[in-house]
Each structure stands twice: as structure tokens, then as C-alpha cells.
């Protein structure tokens, strides 16, 4: 297994180099001069020159790239041009916020999507199956920022049950944190629940057609035992892998959800840094996202091998 993980990690290096090149080039192509943005009203050439020298923006592009990559390897992603805070520190402070939101969203998605997929597969071709499938497709099709706005309208403005925006950490006040994150997590979890439901249904249908399930039924086992013990355990493999990969998708959704609910997380930081032309933050954030995606892919592969006894033996 270690050899497998190592070979996958080595295989990810060219991708990471390309990502770093892409991120670096993209931010260099962003419109506007970051020094002018930093200087604000100040247009004194001496000040501009000082800022350029301070952030080494006068160096040739290859030198700037190599410096950036070299520093990134030591955990130094530079300083935010706007807040003058280290980018690593900024990411470190925002990531737990999005992580808590994503974790809650994933729990909601699993609770809604997996049982719905099992029921749809067991009752294939019935009204329940159609209704669940339409609900799943709706979850995927609904714009999450609109769902967010609508839920704010109902639960915050009209009923005044839950707060419309803000963030409280689970470590500070768990109850208030749950109240604050419930709406955004539900919004974020809806699309994932739809995807999970569709995949669970397909995986279950595949397994329910297999010989060992037929044998279990023929032995006279209870339908619940056949479905949950024999079928679901084997259908679990693709679901576990998919769940891992969907964690990466959560970040894309978090960009808009955090914007709608004013949550000071990683997603909101991406939008703010792009709009503020905070180059160092954009670079650092996109690089972190790419590394996260690559690691999640690796984790999915490892989990797949761990769960699947045939692959485990082969390793």
C-alpha cells in the first residue's frame, strides 16, 4: 500500500508543477497593477518603486516564479497585499470555517442522499423511485445561491427561527454555531445529496442483481437483512469513494454559499481576493485548492483499495 501511495504522490508532481505555473501565469495576467491598488491614493513614483522592490515585482517573471515556488515549498506563500498578513496565516484562519461548514453539509447530504438512494433502488420503477429521482435531480439543478436566498426569506425574515448571516465557531458556542451553519450547510448539502442519491441507487441496483443477493433471498433471509447486510455493504465502495471526491466539490459550492450567508470562510476569501486583486492570496488559495483536490483523489483511491478486498490482496 505504501508503494502505491508513494507512486501516486510522485505521479502528482507534474500536475502540481503545471498547476503552479498556471496559477502564477493567471495572476500575472489579472488586469490592473497590484502596486497601484496597494498604494491607494498615493501615486508618488518613489513609493511605487519602493513597493515594487519590497514585493520583488521588478524581478524577471521566471525569477519571480522560482522565488514563489521555493518559498511555497517552505510554507511561505507571501503576504496579502491588502491586509499585509501572511497568506498561510490567512488560509489557516479561514480553512477551519469552511471545513466546519463542509463537514455539516456532508453529514446532511449523507443523511438525505444515501437512504433515499437505497429506497429508490429497492422500489425501482415505483412512484417512490420516480419521486426520489426527481428530487435528486432537483437538488443538482437548483442554484444554491437562490436556495440560500429563499431559505433566508422563509426561516430568517418571515419565521425568524435562524440567523440570516454570520459565523460562530463550534468551539466557542456549539448551539449558536449549529444555528448559524444549519441553513448554509443545508444549501450546500442539497446538491451533494442529489449526486449521492443517484450514485447510491445505481450501485444498489447493480448489487441487487448479483448472484449472492439472489442466494441470500433464496435462503429466506429477511428483505431488510438482504438489503442492508448483503447488498448495501457491497454497494458502499463507490459511495465511499464518491463521498471523498465530493468534499472537493464542496469548495466550489462554498464560494457562493459563503457569499450569500456572509460567512468569513475560504470560499468568501477566494471571491474577495479575486475582486481586490490580492495576487498573493489568489495564488496561495488556488494552489491550496489544487493540492487539496489531488490529495482527496489520492485518498479516494486508497480508500477504494482498502475497502475492496480483491484490490487489497493485489497490493
Amino acid at each position: 500500500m505504501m508503494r502505491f501511495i508513494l507512486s501516486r504522490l510522485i505521479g502528482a508532481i507534474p500536475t502540481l508543477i503545471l498547476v503552479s505555473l498556471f496559477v502564477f501565469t493567471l495572476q500575472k495576467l489579472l488586469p490592473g497593477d497590484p502596486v497601484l491598488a496597494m498604494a491607494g491614493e498615493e501615486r508618488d513614483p518613489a513609493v511605487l518603486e519602493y513597493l515594487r522592490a519590497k514585493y520583488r515585482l521588478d524581478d524577471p517573471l521566471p525569477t519571480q516564479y522560482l522565488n514563489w515556488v521555493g518559498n511555497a515549498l517552505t510554507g511561505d506563500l507571501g503576504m496579502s497585499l491588502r491586509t499585509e498578513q501572511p497568506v498561510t496565516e490567512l488560509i489557516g484562519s479561514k480553512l477551519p470555517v469552511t471545513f466546519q461548514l463542509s463537514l455539516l453539509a456532508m453529514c446532511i447530504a449523507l443523511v438525505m442522499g444515501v437512504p433515499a438512494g437505497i429506497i429508490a433502488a429497492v422500489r425501482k420503477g415505483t412512484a417512490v423511485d420516480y419521486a426520489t429521482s426527481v428530487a435528486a435531480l432537483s437538488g443538482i439543478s437548483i442554484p444554491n445561491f437562490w436556495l440560500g436566498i429563499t431559505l433566508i426569506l422563509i426561516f430568517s425574515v418571515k419565521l425568524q427561527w435562524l440567523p440570516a448571516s454570520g459565523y460562530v465557531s463550534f468551539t466557542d458556542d456549539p448551539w449558536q454555531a449549529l444555528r448559524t451553519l444549519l441553513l448554509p450547510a443545508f444549501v450546500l448539502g442539497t446538491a451533494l445529496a442529489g449526486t449521492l442519491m443517484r450514485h447510491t441507487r445505481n450501485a444498489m441496483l447493480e448489487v441487487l442483481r448479483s448472484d449472492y443477493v439472489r442466494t441470500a433471498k433464496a435462503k429466506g433471509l429477511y428483505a431488510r437483512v438482504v438489503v442492508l447486510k448483503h447488498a448495501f455493504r457491497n454497494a458502499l465502495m463507490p459511495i465511499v469513494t464518491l463521498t471523498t471526491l465530493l468534499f472537493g466539490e464542496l469548495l466550489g459550492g462554498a464560494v457562493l454559499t459563503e457569499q450569500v450567508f456572509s460567512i468569513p470562510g475560504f470560499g468568501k476569501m477566494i471571491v474577495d481576493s479575486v475582486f481586490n486583486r490580492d495576487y498573493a492570496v489568489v495564488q496561495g488559495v488556488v494552489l491550496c485548492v489544487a493540492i487539496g483536490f489531488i490529495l482527496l483523489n489520492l485518498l479516494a483511491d486508497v480508500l477504494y483499495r482498502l475497502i475492496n478486498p480483491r484490490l487489497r490482496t493485489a497490493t
Partner: protein
Amino acid sequence: MNAALQPSVIGVQAPRKYRVLQRFLANKGAVIGAICLLLFVAVAILAPWISPHDPLKANFLSVRKPPSAEFWLGTDELGRDLLSRLIWGTRSSLLAGVVSVSIAMLIGVPLGLLAGYFGGWLDALVSRVTDALLSCPFLVLAIALGAFLGPSLGNAMIAIGLSAMPIFVRLTRGQVLAVRHEDYLEGARAIGLPHRWIILRYVLPNVQSPLVVQATLTIASAILAEASLSFLGLGQQAPQPSWGSMLTTAKNFLEQAPWMSIVPGLAIYITVLSFNLLGDGLRDALDPKS
């Protein structure tokens, strides 16, 4: 000789098309999706004639009016008719979906064809670049590219198209790899047909079904992405109407004018759902195993 090599001629093309159509029509969801989309296309085309008011004309005597006989869906913060803006917004949403996917396919499909067909260093290079682009979430990439290109509907379409492009590269490459060693291609190579001819006449027609399905499903994602970019201020610019930007404005008037947020969101939802239903239906109808 060329015609004899073509699988569509060897097989029974007309009955297959008929079977595909039959399977598609048997899928109620797909048919409903297709009908809804036809209605949306009709609305987009007929916008100048069916729109009851000027979508851009402000009327400060009718600011934030609830739905009434005069304004069926109410008015916005500048007194503009929401129904008229919704009708005109259909154009930008459908256009964004179709144009971005066309951009993605125009770049992605040829790259995937070349990488899959020739293999070697070209395949390795294209695959690594695709992996790198796919390691960034679709929307994050679209936002970054949208910000780089500047806020406008045209630039949003380019940004979404470029972000969706790697999906088509990977899908096309995979499909080409699956057919690369088929007998009819070996035969075409054996008689010395040029690569360009083989790719266009024999490879492309045999990998197009999954591409059509993917294109339909990606249009749904592209419409959502355009609405998202417009919501963030990177898509269609004021005063031109778009469903996403209508929602951005509506968010500021949730208490005073809740109707402003309901209809644009529903329009996005129904359009995206219709494309997803159509895509699912096409996939089931074109799947030889079904």
C-alpha cells in the same frame, strides 16, 4: 472502399436511429425536459414581441410593486417590469449555456481526439494539462478567469467555456482510446488513409454519442455558472437583464420585495432541470446496453 469501411453503412443506421428515438420518447422526464426547453427557446426568440414592457425602462412611480394585473410578476427597485426582464433574461442564460459549451467543445474535442489518436508525448502533455485544470473546482476556475477577462456576458461565456473544456478533452480522449484499435480503424490505416481523414470520418462519428450527452449536461452546468458569475457581478452587466443579476438585486430587498427573488431563481431551476432531464434521457436512449 471508404464507404465500405464506415460502420454506419455496415450496420443498420436508420433502425438504430428509430430505436434511439423510440427509447427517448418512452422516457417521460426527457420529453418533459425537451418540451420545457423548446418553450424557453421560443420565449428567447420571441422576446421583443411577447415582452409586455421595456425591460430597461425605469419607472419611479412603480418602484417595488407586488404582482398585479399591470405587472404580472411585480416590479424591481427601479420600477422595471420583472416579467419583461425575465423574458429578456432567457436570452442571456440560454446563449451563455450554448456558447460556453460550444467554446469548450471546439477546443476540448479536437485536443482529446489528437491526444487519444496519436498517444505518445502529445497525449502525456494534454493529459497532464487537463489534470492540472481539473484539479481546480469548475466555479473557482470560472471566477478566476472571469475576473481576469473582466466583467461582461461575453467574457463570462469564455471563462465558463475554458473551465468546462478539460471535461471534453478527457471524455473525448477516453472514447478515442476505446475505439483506437477497432478493426475498421486498423483497416483504414492499412489502406493508407491520411490521419486527418481517419479522425474526422471514422473516429469522430464513433465517439460522438457520449459527447452529445455530456454537452447537454454541461449546458445545464454552464447556465448555473453564468447565473453564479452574474450573481457575483462578473456576468451580464446592468442595466441589461439576466437571471443571476436579478437575484443579486433581489437579495438586497428580501424583506421589502420578496417576489423579486422567487421568479428568476425558479427560471434558472426549471431550465437547468430541463437540460439535466434531457441529458439523462439522451444518455439512456443512446446507451447500447439499454
